[in-house]
């Protein structure tokens, strides 16, 4: 399995954020997208997730399956997609069911260290805990490509190393991780793609 981008370009608000970009990420590989503010890191991730249209080029997951690329990615954006009125467990169960996973939500909560408070309303969680709950969704619903936009934002050191472990397991299982970040997110062998370097 391989994610291939072929001379892709993207325009937002009349401004070209990136153009002529080509790369490929194979199963088990991680790609760190770096670059200054406004270099188009978030736009690239959103384009891969199908949330932003490309103005040129193609993006594909090879070999072609019957499912579209958007259905095979997990998108972890700046917002956590957590509903404060639902309990921690209900939030995760909803996303797992919606994203077509049959994974164990209890295991996923344990992986991010929220298993003891699955019954609490998500409104009582701190920002870092909400982030962890958001990450739990990647574990519970199995999808090959993870698109992580600043995944370590508001995570403390133990939670960051938990996340590094989760990403490692995903890569060992033949997954793909593409992360946009300024910080070191603890991936051992990651290739790097610098946007806006030219």
């Amino acid at each position, binding site marked *: 399995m391989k994610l291939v981008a072929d001379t892709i370009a993207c325009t937002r608000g009349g401004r070209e954020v990136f153009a002529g970009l080509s790369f490929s990420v194979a199963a088990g590989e991680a790609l760190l997208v770096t670059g200054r503010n406004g270099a188009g890191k978030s736009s690239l991730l959103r384009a891969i997730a199908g*949330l932003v249209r490309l103005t040129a080029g193609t993006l594909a997951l090879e070999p072609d399956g019957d499912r579209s690329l958007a*259905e095979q990615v997990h998108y972890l*954006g700046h917002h*956590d997609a957590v509903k404060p*009125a*639902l309990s921690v467990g209900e939030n995760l*169960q909803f996303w797992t069911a919606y*994203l077509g996973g049959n994974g164990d939500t209890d295991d996923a909560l344990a992986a991010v260290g929220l298993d003891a408070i699955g019954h609490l309303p998500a409104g009582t969680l701190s920002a870092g805990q909400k982030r962890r709950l958001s990450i739990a969704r990647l574990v519970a619903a199995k999808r090959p490509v993870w698109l992580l936009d600043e995944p370590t934002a508001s995570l403390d050191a133990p939670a960051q190393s938990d996340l590094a472990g989760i990403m490692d397991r995903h890569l060992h299982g033949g997954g793909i991780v593409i992360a946009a970040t300024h910080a070191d997110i603890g991936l051992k062998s990651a290739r790097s793609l610098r946007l806006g370097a030219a």
Partner: protein
Amino acid sequence: MTAFNALLMRDIRLTMRAGGGALMGALFFLIVVTLVPFALGPDLALLGRIGPSILWLGALLASLLALDRLFTSDFEDGSLDVLLTGSLPLELAVTAKALAHWLTTGLPLVIVAPVLGLLLNIEGGAMDAVALTLLAGTPALTFIGLIGAALSVTLRRGGLLLAVLVMPLTVPVLIFGVSATNAAVSGPVPFGPPFTILCALSLMSLVIGPFAAATALRQGLE
């Protein structure tokens, strides 16, 4: 279908838990209906005559204004992005949300309408007709309003914009809803034709609404 049901149940649960959900639309309906006699005077004979129209207007305003937050809250907390990466076609996802909204907001309006009918001195038989036409017509209001809700979230504007966009589109529903009711109450036209057209409008908006709303969301979220 699990994804559809999951989204439907989540939205119902969210409305029930936060913000008084279902009751807020019904409360707005009650207040609109109460204000009318203050404007027109307490003449029961007059109110009884125009009561069905007042109920229809109140239900229309209540169901459209309640749609304001349908996509906005999902947009603000990032849920909409994740919803877009689901395997469920966006048209169906949008339908699930609209259905949940109708069940928690539209249906309560139909249920409280007979109580409000008492305030407006509407006769028993006429009240049955109003309730029946509201039951058949409010889905059309919700699914037409859905388009406005999708447009207003992509334009990052809420509130009155939705009403301005959508109200002209609800004119046919209002016409046939009220004329079916009047046909049942006073004649001379039979109840059947306008009521059938009302049902047809509901079914049509059930198809058009989700497609238009999904298109608006896809175009607008770039």
